């Protein structure tokens, strides 16, 4: 069976201009990342800001070309597909429903846009828009409003309706609930989960909130400075994280349990800088367990008890 998404050694380099007299800096936002998502699965991707998770989302969506490596969607190379074919297969839901919806257009037209682009018009278009709005739990009358008249949760429902109106196979959610209040976040997570099961969708779910990722994903990948340092089934990853970075990340989750206090994450004061990647293991300057060889030797991913881990010490 072909995987819904297969990413092979994908790398994306950005050139950052540092001024007139100094040369450009190269930022390897995604650096040799490989993974696959099986059809109907949900892969959660977590990591701190600047780890490359959003760049990876853009590579999977085909919004950015890879510098090297390739992305296959349902067995086809993304680079060989035209925009229309890609849009029928894979769709995004972004973080901020305030900026991802055109403020001057009516909701009905926003959701109809992907259909319009595919040449589906008239009655067929109107019916599918209507059906989709109902499916995401919006009242029919909302079609005539503009985004400013909607709440944050309603706007995110509109963004989901727009993503699903072409009946894609894969949805890439980049921080879909980060801008929402907890009660609304729960509504949107429940909706996304229900839609995935009912429509047989495949998700890539990117979030900095580990509790959210744990709830919705069946597999989790942890990114650090452009690399995927650990991948495993959600339960295995949360029960027994192997990589020291995953352990620190999980330790920093503040669950609403009073009496546990604030954990000591033990990552020190050094913040990762994507433009200045340390040699050897890129996590070694912040790693509690780091040894001398960690600064010299770059780890390669290995299979350890069902986890794919990139650490010399595991």
């Amino acid at each position, binding site marked *: 069976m072909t995987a819904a998404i297969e990413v092979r050694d994908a790398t994306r380099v950005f050139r950052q201009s540092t001024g007139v007299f100094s040369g450009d800096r190269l930022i390897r936002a995604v650096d040799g990342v490989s993974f696959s998502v099986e059809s109907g699965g949900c892969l959660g991707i977590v990591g*701190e800001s600047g780890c490359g998770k959003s760049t990876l989302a853009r590579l999977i969506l085909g919004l950015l070309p890879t510098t090297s490596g390739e992305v296959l969607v349902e067995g086809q190379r993304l680079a060989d597909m035209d925009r229309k074919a890609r849009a029928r297969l894979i769709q995004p839901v972004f973080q901020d429903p305030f900026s991802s919806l055109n403020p001057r257009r009516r909701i009905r037209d926003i959701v109809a846009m992907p259909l319009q682009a595919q040449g589906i018009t008239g009655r067929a278009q109107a019916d599918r828009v209507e059906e989709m709005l109902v499916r995401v739990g919006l009242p029919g009358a909302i079609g005539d409003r503009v985004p400013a008249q909607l709440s944050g949760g309603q706007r995110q429902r509109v963004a989901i309706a727009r993503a699903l109106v072409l009946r894609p196979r894969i949805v890439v959610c980049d921080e879909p609930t980060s801008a929402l209040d907890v009660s609304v976040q729960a509504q949107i997570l429940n909706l996304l*989960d229900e839609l995935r099961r009912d429509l047989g969708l495949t998700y890539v779910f990117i979030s*900095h909130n580990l509790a959210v990722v744990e709830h*919705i994903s069946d597999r989790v990948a942890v990114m650090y400075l452009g690399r995927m340092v650990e991948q495993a089934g959600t339960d295995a990853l949360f029960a027994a994280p192997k990589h020291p970075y995953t352990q620190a990340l999980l330790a920093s989750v*503040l*669950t*609403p349990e009073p009496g546990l206090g*604030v954990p000591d994450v033990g990552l020190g*004061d050094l913040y990762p800088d994507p433009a200045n990647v340390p040699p050897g293991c890129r996590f070694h300057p912040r790693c509690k367990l780091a040894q001398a060889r960690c600064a010299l030797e770059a780890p390669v991913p290995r299979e350890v008890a069902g986890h794919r881990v990139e650490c010399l010490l595991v």
Partner: protein
Amino acid sequence: MPEAPLLDVRGLRVRFNAQVEAVRGVDLTVERGQTHCVVGESGCGKSVSSLAVMGLLARGAKRSAAHMRFDGQDILGLSDTALQRLRGDRMAMIFQEPMTSLNPAYTIGSQMAEALTRHRKVGKQQALDRAAELLTKVGITAPGLRLAQYPHQLSGGLRQRVMIAMALMCDPELLIADEPTTALDVTVQAQILRLLRDLQAELGLAILLITHDLGVVARIAHKVSVMYAGEVVESASATDLFAAPRHPYTQGLLGCVPIPGKIKRGDPLGSIPGTVPRIADGFTGCGFRDRCAHAMPQCAVSVPQRDDGAGHRHLCHLS
């Protein structure tokens, strides 16, 4: 007789225009050396309440209260200049986005020193020495280098540490922190919260912390007030609130939070149907009744304040 709380606010009301009241009769007390968290969703009035305490509301906003006392002194009737002397000195505030609260055109050092030179009779160099000392205290290595840098040269976590150090320049007794870790990564959030906790233990700071994150509340608060639609609907010690939430809104909110390992994947999270109502003039009864599964006819008329003992109170017909 127990010591009077450092901050004691009764019946705080804030309105922005003739029709809309953003804060409707809020009581808040912060004890010395303790953390009081105000938690709620966007638009509930939590930030406005904290700005009202600091006297930092936008022009045009009207503030009233039964009383508002800081260390026993009435601060409601203080003139702007008297309030300015207090602000940044005995009470200080930090905000969510350290990038927008720091001036991009001045170095960290000159911004930090200003806090001290404005409130105390000290020279620039003395103020800079104090700034360097505080940067070290908040866990910043090479303070000399940081003082000469501009805000854009620092990471988000470092900027928030600078904000905290700046707030501490005049040894405040009360620190008001509005979503201090919301813009930060979880790993950095934990570090900043530990820092606040350690500083509190060392300096006896009273902290009023505004947040939407129940995880933060559980881990750092002594006392919690849950706000909804401009009112405190429940307040209790952190232990009591999480163990036995009384108000349907608090119960609903706690059910919405995914907790790793606690809720089975595929099971829906709890959620609160509907949206926050717009509270216009003439509104009576409970602001939560349209979203509440237990709503009764009398909820549209009035809401009683219930005392559950041990400082636990909630605003509801249900006990």
